[in-house]
């Protein structure tokens, strides 16, 4: 789960990582009032779940409250990479002397939290890694030991020469590691970590991505979910315990299992079609889940046909068939349905479908071809 910069900074503050003073608002006048109170130049920053806000004009320096008002007016409602800005963060403008990068990611290869630091901050770290990899130092933390201060100090020394900065930085790295582990993050990043003209370090930006699998034990973090920033269909799907990703095509797919769902999309594309979505109805699929899935798929006006691809294992084909029959009764879909069923209780499922005049094939390729014919 992604969270906004201002939310990540609230977490930083709890772990006493220094951040500039700031407040969030959703109206231009709010930005003016914050600037009036601060009596200093401010930054007005778009709060959206996407990188490259600065380049898109979503971050502005304002020397007085009027400028803050107009900047907020420009930025609120702005569309950045398909997302509408609904909130801005108004924060103290900092005098920048240096910009560095500190980030922690989960490394799938070494199975460790890897800390990356670079004296080249303020730009995309992937870009730094591609162009000047010698500017990055990486360190994989032993998950059982945890991060020790001397390890953090070595990393800090890669960025700074001045030991008053090295010490501050090592402590910030240690705290960021604590954020990463205690919040169950899959990414925690400060970019840039700014050295100010008075010789202190401050996290000018903050990015945290949380592990969805761990949210069950973080009620406080789950509350940070911004429903405005998420796709409404994906949220509906989540509530029904389905995983759904919207795509651009016209073949609505309903599959059990993530791998098979991807392979089904790929097969649609292979035969010249375009999938409308990824949808995994999961393991033990009740008829209710099938109805919920059909509801989401049919709400997309571009969908011309619905394709079911079910390989029964724990999922029982008759459950899915019952779900299809009920969904057709309830929703009366305007588009045709094609079905593939193989595995557990396949025969029973076929009988159920035949009862309402529907047929099911047992081949994945055949059902995809059928879907394409119906959509043509």
């Amino acid at each position, binding site marked *: 789960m992604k969270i906004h910069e201002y939310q990540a900074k609230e977490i930083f503050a709890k772990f006493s990582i220094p951040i500039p003073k700031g407040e969030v608002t959703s109206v231009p006048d709010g930005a003016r009032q914050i600037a009036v109170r601060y009596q200093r130049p401010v930054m007005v920053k778009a709060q959206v779940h996407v990188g490259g806000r600065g380049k898109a004009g979503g971050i502005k320096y304002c020397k007085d409250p009027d400028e803050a008002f107009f900047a907020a007016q420009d930025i609120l409602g702005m569309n950045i990479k398909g997302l509408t800005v609904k909130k801005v963060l108004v924060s103290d403008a900092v005098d920048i002397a240096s910009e560095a990068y500190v980030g922690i990611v989960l490394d799938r290869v070494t199975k460790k939290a890897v800390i990356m630091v670079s004296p080249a901050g303020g730009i995309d770290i992937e870009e730094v890694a591609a162009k000047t990899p010698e500017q990055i130092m990486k360190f994989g933390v032993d998950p059982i030991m945890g991060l020790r201060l001397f390890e953090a100090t070595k990393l800090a020394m890669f960025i700074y020469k001045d030991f008053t900065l090295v010490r501050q930085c090592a402590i910030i790295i240690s705290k960021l590691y604590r954020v990463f*582990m205690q919040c169950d993050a899959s990414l925690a990043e400060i970019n840039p970590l700014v050295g100010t003209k008075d010789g202190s370090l401050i996290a000018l930006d903050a990015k945290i991505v949380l592990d969805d699998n761990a949210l069950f034990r973080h009620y406080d973090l789950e509350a940070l979910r911004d429903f405005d920033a998420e796709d409404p269909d994906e949220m509906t799907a989540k509530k029904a315990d389905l995983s759904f*990703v919207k795509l651009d095509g016209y073949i609505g797919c309903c599959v059990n299992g993530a*791998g098979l769902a991807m392979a089904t999309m790929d097969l649609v594309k292979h035969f010249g079609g375009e999938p409308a979505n990824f949808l995994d109805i999961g393991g033990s699929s009740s008829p209710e889940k099938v109805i919920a899935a059909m509801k989401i798929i049919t709400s997309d006006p571009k969908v011309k046909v619905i394709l079911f691809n079910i390989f029964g294992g724990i999922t029982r084909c008759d459950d899915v068939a019952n779900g299809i029959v009920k969904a057709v009764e309830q929703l009366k879909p305007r588009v045709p349905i094609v079905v593939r069923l193989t595995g557990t209780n396949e025969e029973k499922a076929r009988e159920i479908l035949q009862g309402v005049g529907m047929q099911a094939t047992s081949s994945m390729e055949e059902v995809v071809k059928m879907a394409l014919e119906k959509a043509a």
Partner: protein
Amino acid sequence: MAIFVDKNTKVIVQGITGRDGAFHTQQMLTYGTKVVGGVTPGKGGTQTHGVPVFDTMTEAVKITKANTSVIYVPPQFAIDAIYEAAEAGVKLIVCITEGLPANDMLKVYHYLKSKDIRLIGPNCPGIISPGLSKVGIMPAQIHKKGNIGVVSRSGTLTYEIVYQLTNAGLGQSTCIGIGGDPVIGTNFIDCLGAFEKDPDTRAVVMIGEIGGSDEEMAAEFIRKKMKKPVVGFIAGRSAPPGKRMGHAGAIISGSSGLASDKIKALNAVGVPVADIPSQVPGLIADRMKKKVSVPRAKKAASRAKAKLVKKGASKKVAIKIAKKAGKKKR
């Protein structure tokens, strides 16, 4: 032989009294898996499908001498269940449960490594050596005993490909689902290495998907260490970047984890990658004819047969004796 599980696998089911645990205990028993016990705290002393239930893993392992555990407990207890199994002394842990926090898994991974315990999963369908043992949730009837090793990050997609292999007459030595999470206990390389050593495996099907770089590393391993033919399939060619495709680990982040890169890496080391699942059996059959010479066992058998026929023994007896000779050689 097969890999990781066989006739000697003795299983404890963690979460045996739960809905999934109980159902699959029955399924595994029907298949002939030696399920020797189950654990649900508070239910010790009862039975599920005739299997004794214990309160703790330590007790269960002490009494049953099990060497394997399979985990069906809900995600919030699954990390603990892995540690409990490890402390109790089993050598193989299969975690079916989906939804384990990744940062916890980092610790689990390094802890198990230090104890030399193998974890398969989490978020996986388990493992089956057809005709010998099934530890997991896959539908048994689609499998057939044979010589193809199958390793996959997926569940139902594996069933699809196994189904096609079986329909084409290509049986399997062992099929392993390694799981769809970013941090898993056993990866492609571990399985490829084991298949390479397994005399019952003649070729391997590797089913990957978007996210991470496990497939690229497997390609490197195949180039350096494998003589047996490998055929690949990669799911998610049409997946958009930045979106988690069901599995926690199936996500293209930035420019890494793309299907096209994985296919390129595999092709570069001579591994053909099927465009669609139905091409897999053909590619495997093709590779086996090309790369696999007559195995030693068969050679020994045919030599013995020729000798006996020369001596004037009847053909039937000759074949019988020859078969024995082949087995001995193995």
